[in-house]
């Protein structure tokens, strides 16, 4: 187990290093942040002075050297725009994204799995057809359009919920969270639905496919014949056996939502890290973009690790073997 973990972290480290280098040199090639940050009225001497102050006058490999030097001391660089450590900037925005992502995934699971099972077990019922058509619409319409429609319906026409932004927050263990206040929850619900729709459609389809297949297996018939309650047959014998693909996909999707909820965060003006990334790319704020993507890679590797461990709990045949995954 330990060797396995070390190996996984080694992989993560390698990917992070490659990613950092690509992003670093890539953003250097795009342009000079000073062109965007400086007031146009600044004269040539001031422009040069600013470039020098931000260390952008040095050749790119020297700049990269400084970056690596900082990295060995745990310093991912300081934002050109905000003059704050890039990591601190990202971490300050992370709680907002995390609560959005987790509520979205939660909605997708608690609605998607039952709906998918219904559709799988009663494939010919009219309501199953409705569920399946709904899921097709759910994952075939663009995310930003769904977001705007939600805003138009619930915020503009009905006026039930706010159109965007994050509501009132309270501190939970020193971290500001909004899901514990009514105002915060009101602000959270529409973006969470926006995040959930696509994932839910995916979960519905995976669950349906699994359920319709598993329901015909001999052991299910045998369980029924033994007189087990329908709830037990559904909840244990069927559900447990269809969870593996659902968990895999949800794991990947969770990573996706956390790292790239950009669309939802932009449409709903949600102050998360996705919005920070987009703003930082627009301004070529290299330290923030590099730190962000390194963190993202780390996050993906960790989520995959959790998914692997979840497999072994769900399916006794899968065991995390020594040195192998």
């Amino acid at each position, binding site marked *: 187990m330990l060797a396995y973990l070390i190996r996984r972290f080694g992989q993560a480290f390698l990917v992070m290093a490659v990613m950092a280098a690509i992003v670093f040199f890539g953003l250097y090639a*795009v*342009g*000079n*942040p*000073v*062109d*965007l*940050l*400086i*007031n*146009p*009225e*600044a*004269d*040539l*001497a*001031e*422009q*040069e*002075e*600013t470039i020098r*102050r*931000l260390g952008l006058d040095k050749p790119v490999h020297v700049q990269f050297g400084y970056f690596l030097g900082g990295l060995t001391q745990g310093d991912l660089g*300081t934002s*050109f*725009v*905000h*003059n*704050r450590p890039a990591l601190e*900037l990202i971490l*300050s*925005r992370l709680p*907002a994204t995390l609560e959005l992502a987790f509520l979205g995934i939660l909605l997708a699971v608690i609605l998607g799995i039952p709906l998918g099972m219904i559709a799988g077990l009663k494939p010919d019922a009219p309501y199953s057809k409705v569920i399946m058509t709904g899921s097709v619409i759910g994952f075939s319409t663009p995310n930003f359009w769904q977001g*705007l429609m939600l*805003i*138009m319906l619930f*915020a*503009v026409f009905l*006026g*039930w919920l*706010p*159109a*965007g*932004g*994050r509501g009132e927050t309270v501190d939970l263990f020193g971290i500001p969270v909004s899901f514990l206040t009514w105002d915060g929850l009101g602000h959270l619900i529409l973006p969470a639905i926006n995040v959930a729709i696509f994932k839910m459609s995916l979960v519905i389809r995976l669950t349906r496919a699994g359920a319709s297949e598993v329901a015909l297996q001999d052991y299910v018939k045998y369980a029924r014949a033994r007189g087990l309650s329908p709830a037990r047959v559904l909840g244990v014998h069927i559900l447990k056996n269809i969870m593996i693909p659902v968990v895999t996909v949800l794991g990947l999707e969770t990573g996706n939502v956390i790292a790239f909820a950009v669309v939802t965060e*932009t*449409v*709903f*003006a949600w*102050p*998360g890290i996705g*919005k*920070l990334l*987009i*703003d930082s790319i*627009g*301004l*070529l704020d290299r330290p923030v973009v590099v730190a962000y993507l390194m963190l993202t890679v780390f996050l993906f590797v960790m989520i995959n690790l959790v998914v692997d461990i979840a497999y072994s709990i769900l399916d006794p045949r899968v065991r995390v073997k020594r040195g192998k995954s």
Partner: protein
Amino acid sequence: MKKLSLLAAALSLGALSAPACAQSLVAGFASEPSSIDPLYHNLGPNNATRKHMFESLIAEGPNLAIIPKLAESWTTSEDGLTWTFNLRKGVKFHDGGAFSARDFLYTACRIPNVPNSPSSMAGFIKRATSIEAPDDHTITVTTAAPYPLLLTDFASFGVISASANGHSGAVSYKKEGCPGIESYLDSKAYNDGSATIGTGPYKFVKFVPGENIVMKRNDDYWGEKAHWETITIRPITNAGARVAALLAGDVDVIEKPPVQDLDRLRKNEKVDVVQGASSRVIYLHFDHAGEPTPGIGGTDGKNPLKDVRVRKAISLAINRPLIIDRIMGGLAVPARQLVPDFMVGVDKSIELEKPDMKEAKRLLAEAGYPDGFTLTIGSPNDRYINDSKIAQTVAQMLTRAGIKTDVDAVTASVFFKRRNKYEFSLYLAGWGSSGAGMASPLRALVASQNKEKGLGGTNRGRYSNPELDAVIEEALATVEPKAHQALLAKASKIIVDDVAILPLHFEVTPWALKAGLTMTPRADQHTVLTSVRPAN
């Protein structure tokens, strides 16, 4: 709940006799300041936010005319080298401390020393060789040479409190470093509010990056008290989301509503649109130096843009009213000079040019290009209102005149890098002038590049005309307002005659507000919420 609050709003509007009720204003901004520190970053969103909490010595009114603020009056010496400012008495900072000359000196000391500033304000004080305070309410400034733009410079930064920055006792300003002040506060102290102490109509409450900036009314303000008890600025970068937030009643006012939505917003009875002329000119700049020049083909390596007849032909081929009507939805004013008529330095005798395709073709033929040539226009596609669409329209108009024109429109970060490396023969960009009027674009866009004199900083067309330079330099050394303006107008005439640069139009800035509210548009496009008020 929302219904109830709407009802309450309707009732309170009905009861006209009731004075200011529970008043809070929420605004949706298109971009967020990078810091609350008024001296950290000299850029639009920061300067607009600053105006709520920090005041400058002198200010620019809505039309960018110079008005008194923390200084009540000022005089200039006979030789134009010494300026004396008489400060307003009885002004208090948000922490109750009295404002005096020492706070201004401290501000001047901190300006060049703000840690890691990405766009420093140091240019605003570098002309001053000395800044002194003979008494608590007088400041004298001397410059090495007569410098007429000192007032505009001093209108550009907010005054901070020396005491709130941890400095007690007297301050003396020295250009090479102020004695007795070892270090200056990092901008962080302003973002968390510990040093955010100004004299303005609003006090800082909190700043959560990406989420909001909250301010409350300063009830001890020396001037007219602000209307709203609290104001909240929310950054909503997506234009569609901004409009939705306004329609949903989440925010009361938004800046930069998308041009294509304006007609719909105007028809909506829940929303009012306010618009005002701005000082931002959208212009085309020619490559005056490259030979061959990168974006032109079919001329055997010659740069046709060096010929004034070709430049004139391009100007005549562009139908500005058509662009304004079809592309800008009427939200622009045609331009021939670099600043609009209401600003200083315009030669009022110069009339707008009428598009004339026949004359354009004749001039091209006369210049030796009867069959035209090929040309690529560089343009950003996310910087100015409809920037790439304007470039495309210009390209079609030039193609009709015989110059086969393509558009190379890229995102702003890439555009500026390529422009600064002189990769465009003709490029579209914008320039928002400060209260300095014509002097602002003259010294930056068309004066010859000269690092020592601080001229030509954005002259990426590398235009160089010694006759013009002489006039600009003379204007920049003439303090007497009438003579200064006459020289600026003279320079403007030279540019127009030589078609050194091609102004297309001045942007008109729209704002959308909840019905029943109004505001005073500012020519610098800043959204200053103190001017938002009920319409009646």
